[in-house]
């Protein structure tokens, strides 16, 4: 443990969300200039956000906490981790969508077309989606955190329904309705934190809204109120984070959205909600450490339910969506422990999951792009025709299964060790079994799609080719990241260490 980091005023937290917000407005207002402007602005903005994220990481690793707007915005290790993940995946998803979204036929629905004037809307909303997620990660105001999380639902709602056909509309309706109701509970939770913090009498006027300040007086909050607040927060932010049993919206939305949006939903958005949950609930840990057992229970339940439902899927995108639920279980179990090792493992897995789940969704998107099919039963024998996609999918599958030497192994191992060290052997055992089941799910899908003889006629008859470079380059970058984070996990240490120290309230 080291001394408290230095608090420094900086414009980075402001820029992080204002840049994509302004760029999104430019794209939406400049719709008539067409898709090229929209794509160029989106790419430049995403790179800028990544740059801001990297700058934040550099400052945070040098033991600084960045604040702006009189402590309304605050970036510590945890925020910086999320910003850099959002920026990184944002860049790759934008590059990927250049060819994926920009073509007349909707990839999963051959023959149908997207009106050209809708493409700039796609990119504008994509930028606003990034902006709202980034705002949530830098705000220190508990009510604005709710506002940000709900805003991510609103900006992504039309992206989920973008294809505007029966499936997409159904998914969009469920997404907006279920998440809005769920998040309303989080508003109650956030307001209770504020009201309870203000009632302790230890804080000045607006200070009770600031999470960093409420943290100091949390011990004075009555137990009953704290319990209700935590319950509301878990239902609210937990719904958004895809924690079982609040997950039913997730497979619909993640599977029906255009693939670059699926990448952002599964790779980034549920992490941002997890961040909101961890940020708010962790302030109650020092006074109520028994929350840890409950959190680990919730995490293991989520892991098991997610993987069991994934086993039953034939649709590749739904399979990946359910596997996201399962993997979020590991993150909850790790962070929920409240110990340094648990938080480190949970956050490491959060980072890794963002990488390999984005990779897997992109690979499935590539299959849809080239074959027009997304059911395992409709695909087969594609390893020769799509070598890069198949290699990338395989690397992603090995990584998510937690097999050495790729990234998932390291983070899952950390979570297992943390659980065992906390004496929760039952949870560690469940986590190991779920890891094996994940291997079964992903390897079965990979072997059927890429190596087995095609079962139906469809895959053989289509002249299948590898996807264009703008789609496979992002995949290769992510695949390399899976390998690097697995072989050299220490490169993420400086940042993950700062981030884990923010959440680790129950000692080592």
């Amino acid at each position, binding site marked *: 443990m080291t001394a408290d980091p230095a608090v420094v005023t900086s414009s980075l937290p402001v820029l992080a969300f204002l840049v994509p917000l302004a760029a999104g407005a430019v794209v939406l207002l400049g719709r008539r200039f067409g898709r090229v402007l929209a794509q160029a602005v989106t790419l430049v903005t995403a790179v800028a956000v990544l740059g801001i994220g990297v700058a934040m990481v550099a400052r945070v690793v040098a033991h600084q906490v960045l604040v702006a707007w009189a402590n309304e915005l605050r970036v510590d290790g945890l925020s910086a981790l999320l910003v850099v993940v959002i920026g990184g995946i944002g860049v790759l998803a934008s590059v990927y969508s250049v060819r994926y979204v920009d073509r007349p036929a909707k990839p999963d629905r051959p023959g149908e077309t997207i009106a050209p004037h809708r493409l700039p809307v796609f990119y504008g909303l994509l930028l606003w989606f990034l902006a709202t997620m980034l705002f949530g990660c830098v705000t220190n105001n508990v009510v604005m955190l709710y506002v940000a999380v709900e805003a991510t639902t609103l900006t992504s709602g039309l992206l989920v329904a973008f294809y505007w056909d029966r499936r997409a509309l159904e998914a969009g309706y469920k997404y907006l309705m279920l998440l809005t109701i769920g998040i309303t509970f989080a508003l109650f939770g956030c307001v209770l934190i504020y*009201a309870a913090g203000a009632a302790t009498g230890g804080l000045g006027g607006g200070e009770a*809204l600031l999470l960093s300040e409420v943290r100091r007086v949390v011990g004075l909050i009555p137990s009953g109120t704290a319990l209700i607040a935590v319950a509301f927060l878990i239902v609210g932010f937990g719904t958004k984070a895809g924690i079982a049993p609040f997950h039913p919206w997730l497979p619909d939305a993640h599977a*029906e959205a255009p693939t670059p949006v699926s990448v952002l939903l599964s790779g980034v958005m549920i992490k941002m909600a997890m961040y909101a949950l961890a940020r708010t609930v962790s302030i109650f840990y020092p006074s109520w450490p028994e929350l840890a057992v409950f959190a680990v229970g919730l995490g293991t339940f989520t892991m098991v339910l997610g993987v069991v439902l994934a086993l039953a899927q034939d649709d590749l995108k739904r399979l990946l969506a359910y596997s996201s639920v399962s993997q979020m279980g590991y993150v909850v179990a790790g962070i929920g422990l409240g110990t340094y090792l648990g938080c480190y493992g949970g956050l490491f897995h959060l980072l890794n999951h963002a990488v390999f789940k984005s990779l897997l969704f992109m690979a499935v998107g590539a299959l849809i792009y080239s074959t027009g099919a997304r059911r395992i039963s409709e695909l087969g024998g594609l390893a020769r025709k799509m070598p890069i996609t198949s290699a990338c999918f395989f690397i992603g599958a090995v990584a998510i299964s937690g097999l050495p030497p790729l990234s998932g192994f390291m983070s899952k191992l950390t979570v297992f060790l943390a659980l065992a060290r906390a004496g929760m052997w039952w949870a560690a055992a469940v986590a190991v079994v779920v890891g094996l089941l994940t291997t079964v799910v992903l390897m079965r899908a990979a072997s059927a799609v890429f190596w087995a003889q095609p079962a139906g006629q469809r895959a053989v008859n289509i002249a299948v080719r590898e996807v264009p470079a703008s789609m496979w380059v992002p995949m290769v970058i992510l695949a390399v990241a899976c390998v690097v984070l697995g072989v050299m996990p220490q490169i993420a240490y400086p940042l993950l260490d700062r981030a884990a120290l923010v959440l680790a309230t129950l000692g080592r």
Partner: protein
Amino acid sequence: MNTELLPVDLIRTLSMLLVITSVATVEIRRLRLSAVAYSIQALIIVALLASFAPGNPALYLWAGTALLTKAILTPYFLFRGIGSGDDRELKPLIGFGPSVLVAVLLMLGFYHLTHTHVALLAPNELAQQELFRTNLAVASTVFALGLYAVLTRRDAIKTVIGLCLLENGVHLSLVSLAPGLPETALFGVASEVVVTVYLLLYVIGGVRREFGTTDTFALRELHW
């Protein structure tokens, strides 16, 4: 907050009217009439916020925000979403008689529960006072009725009306729980509800064109 300045009787009457209009909004089977009941309910909320305001002038701003978002924009979107055709609500899961019974039971149960256990929900001294206990009890009742409507109604537009009720309940509770909420946060919370309603009705418009109905039971393409 200076509670001596508050028109207590007026607040009581408005609170009671609020609960009655909520039940009406949920139970009326003509969508346009239901939206009218909702609009009246929204106006009562505006009046309620304004009558709390002598004790806390910031609430005038809340009342103004509520007037714009809840009583003008939301009803406008709702009426536009319902359209000019047949506005009979699709048969809900629960028939009219049992549904009214459930609504009344919910109302009494939640009112009683919140009123007696207010200390858990609201740790501040303000909320312990009789008037604010009543306010919280009414707010949670409206919330529960809205949730009930969302869960048991088949008609997508009716579920949106239920969602509006639910959000109204939340906002009303803020009077007691978070009277010092800054304008930016308040505006964020209030404007998001309007955007949600707009987006949901926009998507429901698409559903109506694609499926030929606003029956949520018809949304069965995705399962498992």
